[in-house]
């Protein structure tokens, strides 16, 4: 019994004379808490929560919109990129084709030019040959005339030289002798 009594004494004994219990309720503090809290609630509701929450939702909407916009822009860009890729490959194909055509054309042109030049060359050779021949015959003819002239001149000269008076007399005489015989 003693033990229990002392234990109760220990539990309920207070350290100091004046200090109250933490469980004491002061009505004044209740009143001031109500006043303070309600005042705080009203002030903060007006100056803080309304503008801040509005700004927050405004910003959230802004971010959401921006994200959506960015998403859309990205999709557009991807589409554009794909289109560009297709265009690029088409252009490359075209370019390849054009180059191919150009090469073909060049080849054709080359053979044609070569052919033409060959033909021309042959013609030129033919021309040159006939010209040479013509010149040859011309030169031959000229030479022939000249040779005849020279021969006639030489004959004339010879004749003139051989047919002087004595010789002619002698020749006539001979002829006459022959005739007498």
């Amino acid at each position: 019994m003693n033990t229990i009594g002392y234990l109760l004494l220990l539990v309920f004994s207070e350290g100091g004379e004046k200090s109250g219990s933490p469980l004491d309720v002061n009505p004044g503090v209740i009143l001031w808490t109500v006043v303070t809290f309600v005042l705080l609630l009203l002030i903060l509701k007006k100056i803080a929560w309304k503008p801040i929450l509005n700004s927050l939702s405004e910003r959230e909407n802004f971010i959401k919109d921006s994200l959506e916009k960015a998403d859309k822009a990205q999709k557009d860009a991807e589409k554009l990129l794909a289109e560009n890729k297709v265009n690029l490959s088409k252009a490359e194909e075209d370019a390849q084709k054009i180059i191919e055509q150009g090469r073909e054309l060049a080849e054709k042109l080359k053979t044609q030019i070569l052919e033409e030049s060959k033909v021309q060359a042959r013609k030129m050779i033919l021309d040159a040959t006939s010209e040479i021949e013509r010149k040859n015959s011309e030169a031959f003819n000229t030479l022939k005339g000249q040779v005849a002239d020279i021969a006639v001149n030489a004959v004339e000269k010879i004749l003139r030289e051989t047919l002087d008076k004595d010789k002619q007399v002698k020749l006539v005489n001979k002829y006459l002798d022959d005739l007498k015989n």
Partner: protein
Amino acid sequence: MWIYNPNTVSDTVKTVVEATKKQDTSWIMHHVLDSRELDFTPFGIVHLPELHLFGIDISITKHVVFMWLALVILVVTFLYVARTYRKSLVPRGVTNLTEVLIVFVRDEIVKPTIGKGYERFLPYLLTVFFFILTCNFLGLIPYGSTATSNIAVTATLAVISFIVIQAGGMMKNGVFGYLKGLVPHGIPIWLLPIMIPVELLGLFTKPFALAVRLFANMTAGHIVILSLLGLIFILHTYFVAPVSVSFTLFIFFLEILVALIQAYIFTMLSSLFIGMAVHQEH
């Protein structure tokens, strides 16, 4: 063999009681309890005015002063914060800190617990959260005092929560609809005599638990810190000082955590109860 001897036990208890009487522990209570003065020892003591209204003692006490300090701090801070939002939507500095807390309360506490129509209760719950948080932290600064370690303060806050819970429920479901919805559907009629008192009691135990939880948490930490420091003076040796100081430091960090957690829990539970009152079908 140790034999139970009632005399030994009673002697021990007697000694402890004697020691308790001899050793004045009122200094701990002096720090924890409310008082009529602001103790700035060694710079002096400010005595607060005594006021009476209709025979009720409404003197300004230490805790009232610190509640006002919390009010001033919050109003000044949020005036500044609200102004920074007007300048730019990008938060910076203090605004970052408050925004984290505001968004946390809104998205992690109020939205999930109340659900549809949570906007109506958001200002109240935000105010409760920041008020309790500031009061808790004011108790951790030198010469500070925790208003939330006063049962009158926490009980008042809990009663305000109670009113908000009931008003929220009644505004959504109508007075009679709300009272009818308190008892779950599909209960046999013979159970009603038991269920009605239980549910009614449940209405009042919720705010009671809110009040006691906050009060006890905020008081306990301070008493533990003061007791640990008191060990140095009780044991009359310097050798215990490192232990005391390191433990005190640990408890102090714990107190910072507790200050946050209790503000969170009070708001969270208030929000939960509002949600239960508003959406009774769940």
